[in-house]
């Protein structure tokens, strides 16, 4: 029985960490703020959820399991909220998505809009 559990948790941990790394790479390589937002937002919540469920499988007594459930619920709640607030504030302050069709027009807009 526990062999299956270890395999499952190992698999979940593997996928979760792969997602986290892909989120990190997405953060670096994507051209514009909103695409990076997207990359991080998605992989964060899913990757964290995966790893935490993987850990839940490994946990022995109930208290640890309960704490892990709380951490999972908390991350699932605040992850999307922070992304939402971040996007709203960014849009509010004039960071415009870089639309691909007129690249050069957006080039000069890009450097004026990026505040710093």
């Amino acid at each position, binding site marked *: 029985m526990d062999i299956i559990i*270890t395999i499952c*948790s*190992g698999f979940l*941990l*593997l996928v*979760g*960490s*792969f997602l*986290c*790394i892909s*989120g*990190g*790479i997405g*953060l*670096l390589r994507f051209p514009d*703020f909103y695409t*990076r*937002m997207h990359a*991080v937002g998605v992989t*964060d919540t899913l*990757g*964290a959820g995966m*790893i*935490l469920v*993987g*850990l839940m499988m*490994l*946990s022995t007594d109930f*208290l*640890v399991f309960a*704490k*892990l459930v*709380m*951490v999972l619920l*908390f*991350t699932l709640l*605040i*992850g999307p*909220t*922070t*992304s939402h*607030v*971040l996007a709203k*504030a*960014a849009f*509010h*302050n*004039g*960071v*415009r998505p870089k639309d691909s069709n007129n690249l050069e027009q957006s080039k000069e807009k890009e450097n*004026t*809009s*990026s*505040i*710093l």
Partner: protein
Amino acid sequence: MLIAATLAIFVAMILAIIRGIAGPTLYDRILAVNMFGTKTVLLISLLGFVMGRPEFLDIALVYALINFISVIGVLRYSDTNQFKHMPTEDKSIRKEP
């Protein structure tokens, strides 16, 4: 398996820090801080299991909480002149806040 996961989280943290330092606009940096926070939560939980001391999970929970509050704080105070006048809908490019 746990060790592999911790190493992966480490790599993700380093990527977040690179974006945090390099990030052109302010909001890239807030995004990096946010991602860094969630990665630390995972790192602490994994460390708890690697070292066999499940007490660490309280700290992971506090990390998530603190990360949430500091990102909200940053966003709440980053658009400072929002209170100067009623925010009209067609907000053009904002000048230096």
